[in-house]
């Protein structure tokens, strides 16, 4: 495959001042927050929303929106890395730690699949969503999370590529095997560590 032709003067919309220790290999920092979507934006009224924990668990655990919002939550600032090559530094979120949602769950499962309105799924090792590594986020930049960015609530797992931070999340299925989700079953890496540039299957 011959190298692509460089177009004189083209830069795109990128920050000039990307600190290299915060921008993973192959990524470009941006100030935008692009909306990426694989389907129509779901519209679920909050009185119909719930979050369930199912699969290899002692019993089904369910939170209504009120129960979810009554849980301890925190504000965090993290960098996010999309596999389409943009990185956004210092994004501020408000959410409930996933381990808080899993507190009373008994399981020997090692993997989770996040399930979402609209049918999107993504798989992760259980250890990657506990110990302060993941949240179910309901706020972004001081405001309630916009539907086009995953509101009312999305998964937030900043240490992995952002396709793992599933929008419109409605629950976690616990399993003893790692089942590829929506993108992982069609070319994307099972794990997705941006610092090892694990974008595609076989990387």
């Amino acid at each position: 495959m011959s190298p692509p032709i460089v177009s004189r003067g083209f830069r795109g919309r990128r920050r000039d001042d990307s600190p290299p220790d915060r921008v993973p290999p192959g990524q470009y920092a941006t100030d935008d927050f692009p909306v990426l979507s694989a389907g129509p934006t779901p519209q679920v009224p909050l009185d119909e929303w719930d979050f369930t924990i199912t699969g290899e668990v002692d019993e089904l655990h369910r939170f209504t929106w009120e129960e979810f919002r009554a849980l301890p939550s925190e504000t965090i600032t993290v960098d996010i890395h999309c596999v389409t090559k943009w990185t956004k530094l210092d994004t501020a979120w408000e959410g409930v730690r996933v381990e808080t949602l899993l507190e009373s769950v008994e399981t020997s499962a090692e993997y989770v699949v996040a399930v979402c309105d609209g049918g999107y799924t993504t798989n992760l090792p259980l250890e990657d969503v506990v110990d302060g590594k993941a949240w179910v986020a309901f706020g972004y930049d001081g405001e309630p999370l916009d539907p086009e960015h995953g509101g009312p609530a999305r998964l937030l797992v900043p240490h992995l590529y952002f396709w793992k931070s599933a929008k419109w999340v409605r629950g976690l299925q616990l399993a003893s095997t790692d089942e590829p989700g929506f993108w992982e079953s069609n070319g994307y890496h099972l794990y997705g560590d941006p610092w090892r540039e694990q974008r595609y299957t076989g990387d």
Partner: protein
Amino acid sequence: MTDDVKLDGNAAAGILQQIFAVEVTMASGTCDGCGAVEPVGAVSVYARAAGTVLRCPHCEAVLMKVVTDGERIWVDLRGLRALELSV
């Protein structure tokens, strides 16, 4: 609600022709979800994503997923029960 990012199947013509080697926007696809039949050019395309997703314009079920890294193309065609092409 209008999803402003939604495009028509025609917008995926380029990547689809790289897979099928022929123009497929005029081929008829049958949705495995609801059985509807439409030209590929008339389905819904979501192209601002980690890949390209083609959905049935009637029931929104996924018809096809396409991911490329520039050298490999991964295609999931499970949502298409059948594709009829003229050659």
